[in-house]
């Protein structure tokens, strides 16, 4: 906690990136820079970046527009889908507003069906994401990536060269490496940075559109944090929590704060707010760059894959690397795929890793905040 106050303006700037970038978005558009709106970690950013477009995440995080969405969509649908759709429908999200094209993937059932309606408000292109990770799937996914390139070329009346793609791959890899350096800080015991701060920086970074500048900015933050840490006197170890499951979006405050208020620290995010979307790099030297991109993205361990071995692989690796004491699996209400996987994750965490596990099902409302606090407190007491 004390760290946050000390951090320089640059840090705040990251946390506030989303807010500020409303203006930035407008400025970009004034400069004729195309904007592609996306909803998922599977979107191969490099292809859009190669033509100089900026990519914005449209996953919405507030329950504000859910009532509006529920006029069209069933109530018992994941809040992330409802909220995102609601923002699109009500035009309340400037990023959605400024997006020239929306790209979705056939991930979970709720999302892909929602895209069918989204087309009523905006041009939408849906990539056919396989739901297995076989070699056949790779062939399909690679062809979908090439198709995306063609769709972009046609939509924006431009051409995307392989050279540009390779350049974009390099820049994106450098960004990933920088973000990894940041979120790896909690490998130190105790962690030099709170989970809430990591979350905010990672989230904020997705709204930093000058991708080339990110590594330098992140490294400045890292340096500052390290200096603070050196000077810190109290270095008692706290229980170390890893968060996995659905993207946190609208429940980040509720969950992360509840953990950290109980005297534990979130040292790692396995989900799409952290390692799942950042950890793996694209092989820059691959002869076939499309295949390298396809492979990198298809490897993502999301529960919409069946089976989903990569989630366990990454989870196991992170539990070891971050000396994790316990795992919290966050399930957004009505997310069937992650909910079904809780059993598999629990078995893996309890039996193979021998540490406690808890799953929490929640939504974007604040109604269950008290209950979540109690559960977290009891969970931390257990450690």
């Amino acid at each position, binding site marked *: 906690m004390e760290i946050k106050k000390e951090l320089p303006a640059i840090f705040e700037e990251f946390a506030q990136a989303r807010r500020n970038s409303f203006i930035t978005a407008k400025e970009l558009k004034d400069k004729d820079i195309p904007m592609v709106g996306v909803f998922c970690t599977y979107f191969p950013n490099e292809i859009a970046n190669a033509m100089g477009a900026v990519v914005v995440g449209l996953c919405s995080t507030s329950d504000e527009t859910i009532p509006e969405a529920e006029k069209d969509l069933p109530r018992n649908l994941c809040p992330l889908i409802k909220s995102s759709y609601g923002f699109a429908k009500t035009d309340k999200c400037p990023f959605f507003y400024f997006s020239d094209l929306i790209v979705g993937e056939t991930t979970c059932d709720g999302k892909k069906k929602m895209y069918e309606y989204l087309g009523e408000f905006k041009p939408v292109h849906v990539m056919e994401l396989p739901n297995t990770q076989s070699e056949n799937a790779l062939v399909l996914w690679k062809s979908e990536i090439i198709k995306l390139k063609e769709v972009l070329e046609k939509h924006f009346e431009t051409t995307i060269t392989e050279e540009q793609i390779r350049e974009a791959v390099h820049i994106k890899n450098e960004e990933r490496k920088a973000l990894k350096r940041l979120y790896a800080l909690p490998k130190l015991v105790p962690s030099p940075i709170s989970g809430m701060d990591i979350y905010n920086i990672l989230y904020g970074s997705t709204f930093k559109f000058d991708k080339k500048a990110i590594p330098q900015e992140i490294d400045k933050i890292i340096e500052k944090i390290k200096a603070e840490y050196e000077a810190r006197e109290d270095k008692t170890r706290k229980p170390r929590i890893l968060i996995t499951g659905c993207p946190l979006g609208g429940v980040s405050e509720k969950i992360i704060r509840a953990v950290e208020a109980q005297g534990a620290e979130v040292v790692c995010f396995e989900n799409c707010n952290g390692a799942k979307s950042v950890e793996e790099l694209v092989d820059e030297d691959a002869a076939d760059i499309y295949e390298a991109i396809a492979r990198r993205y298809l490897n993502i361990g999301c529960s919409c894959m069946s089976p989903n071995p990569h989630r366990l692989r990454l989870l196991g690796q992170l539990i070891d690397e971050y000396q994790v004491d316990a795992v919290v699996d966050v399930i957004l209400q009505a997310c069937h795929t992650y909910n079904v996987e809780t059993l598999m994750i629990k078995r893996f965490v309890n039996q193979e890793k021998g540490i*406690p596990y808890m799953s929490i099902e929640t939504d974007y409302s604040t109604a*269950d905040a008290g*209950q979540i606090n*109690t*559960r977290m407190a*009891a969970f931390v*007491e*257990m450690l």
Partner: protein
Amino acid sequence: MLSLGIDSGSTTTKGALFDGTNIVRTQVIPTTSNPKESMRRLYEEMHTDQVGYVVATGYGRELLPQADKRVTEITCHARGAAFLCPKTGAVVDIGGQDSKVILLDRDRNVVDFLMNDKCAAGTGRFIEVMMRILEEDLKNIDQFVAGKHPVNITSMCTVFAESEIVSLLAQGVDRGDIALGIIQSICKRTSFFAKRLNLHDTVFFSGGLAQFPIFCRTLEEFLQLPVVTHPMAQLAGAIGASVIGYQKAKQILK
């Protein structure tokens, strides 16, 4: 030295004084709309010079400034159950508003737990509502269902179960048969919920329903594990809090 445990629940606030070996005094007062005030009142009634450590637990655990420590009801409940019945391997608690299952290890520490706080079905509230429709006092439940043949209640939701019962009554089904059906439904549901944790040892049953033998027996049937309870089961949270408090105080004195 004594330790004081205070458990602020949604309907009652409970206190227990522990001397290191025995629970020397307990007290229960209703929780008013001002839970902070109820805690303060109980604290003042029970606190003496001999009390060296105070632990607060339950929903209102943050509301007692005099508490030396705040511990969740999960941890306290487990500790209290293990104190009352040392064989306890797991706790099943059916409260007024929620139900919970707690798994203990050999050293009687909490290793896992589940809470159902989203839905009234499977809580004491469910049975309360149903008994009201049957116009029967819950107190007499054991006699009321003796020798009856349970009807199958299929609805999983309090509201739908209510209309199911109304229509059963309209068909002239025996009220005792319906009541036994309700008991089976709640125990079955609770045991499905509980079995998500790896229960394997004696189950300590607490909450308001635990005092009725019919609930213990039915739960035992569905769980296929020995189910025990204790006359002080309702005080398990407060007792656990006082036991934890005593240990803390001893650690400090050391």
